[in-house]
């Protein structure tokens, strides 16, 4: 199992979510975050001075998925979350050691 963390634009979230669902990737945990990438946010101009706005609202999606699905998920997020301009976001993949449900005591890793 892997934990895929995708940090994307809030305005792309609906699209990404729908696309993931269409491909059967349903389980996800979503957090409102702020972030900056290498561009150090957005540099507004103000009276000639640059006024950087370095923390921009983003949506963080965490999905625990089968190893085999990682590439699929990444390409869905990319396909639907992209505008091509800086700030589109990142995807990180982390190893997961085990997962389980709260609803039942049966561990059924295959489930999710």
């Amino acid at each position, binding site marked *: 199992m892997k934990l895929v963390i995708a940090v994307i634009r809030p305005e792309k979230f609906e699209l990404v979510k729908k696309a993931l669902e269409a491909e059967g990737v349903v389980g996800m945990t979503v957090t409102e975050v702020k972030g900056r990438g290498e561009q150090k946010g957005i540099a*507004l101009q103000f009276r000639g001075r640059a006024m950087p706005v370095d923390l921009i609202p983003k949506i963080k999606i965490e999905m625990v998925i089968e190893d085999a699905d990682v590439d699929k998920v990444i390409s869905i997020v990319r396909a639907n979350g992209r505008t091509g301009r800086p700030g589109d976001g990142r995807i990180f993949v982390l190893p997961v050691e085990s997962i389980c449900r709260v609803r039942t005591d049966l561990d059924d890793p295959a489930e999710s």
Partner: protein
Amino acid sequence: MALDSGDTAFILICTALVMLMTPGVGFFYGGLVRRKNLISMVALSFVALSMVTLQWVFFGYSLAFGPDISGIIGSFTFIGLEGVGTTGDGIPDLLFMVFQMAFAAIALAIVTSAVAERVKLSAFIVFGLLWTTLIYDPIAHWVWGGGWAAQMGIVDFAGGIVIHISAGFSALALALVIGKRVGFGQYSMDPHNIPMTLLGGALLWFGWFGFNAGSALAANGLAVNAFVVTNISAASGALAWMGASWVRGKPSSLGMISGAIAGLGAITPAAGFVGPLAAIVIGTVSGVLCYYALLFRMRKGLDESLDAWAIHGVGGFWGTLSIGIFAIASIGGVSGLIAGVGEQFLLQAFGAVTVMVFSFVGTYIIARFVDALMGLRVSEDEEYVGLDISQHGESIQV
């Protein structure tokens, strides 16, 4: 006639209520935009209030209510409030001036709907000054200041033409010039803070009593009639919009409050001319009509973002016509179709259409001018970051 303390007390307080409506518009609108533009939206309403106050003192009041020049505009007689004193007929002239000031302020605040989430603050200030001077003041003069419309017999009790048609159709023109918000139609721009909109709506509903009843300019039976029909029309509009939208899906609270505003806008011109039962019809029709106007606006992909056109423009238009239908002479001295008189309806229609065209065209020209002059719109990056930060350097930390 001497001053009457009761009338003076009434109009003083009504003026305060109308003043509260301008921030009320700000909160109403503020809840409807995305979080990153809330402060900006409320701030625009305060800017409108402040700017119009000074413009009105300097020359706006004189343009609107100064001695008539050929039915077109007021003269500069009252410039700097020269000669506008604390004596008068029932209420002091100065009180009439400040009551009308509150109307001028809210009209501009309504127009901010069109530029929500993308206007440059500096450009709005320039636009606002031009708009209130070149669009609002003349219209106020025509209808209330003894201009051609008044001379013809067109009536408008509390501002259906002067405020709602003018602001609504101006917003439409302005929206066309400034263009859609980035992403409009592509992704959801759902209102982020409905409770704030409901709060603004509550303040508007409350203030509207001052707006309409105060337009009787006295604490008399006419004011009471206006007060009563105002509440009835608001309630009818709220339930009608709620009902109409319930048929298609969930009855949103936003629909309900929008319907209330639609009902309030529609009864505004008619409040001194029609009775309670007519108010039910006026409000109900307005609720449904404005709801369909909104659906139409969305279908057309028009980003008149917060629906000043669909609600104030369309509601005010309908209300202006409704006088020609429901007016009863015993209430306000004017008779409509139902009383068997057709003339008033034609007058009202003529007034409504003329002001609609004037507002739309005039605002279009002003907006194009300001856009050419300095750009109406913030840069794409500023829009993305939001106007709170980009125009005011502020943000909400909650």
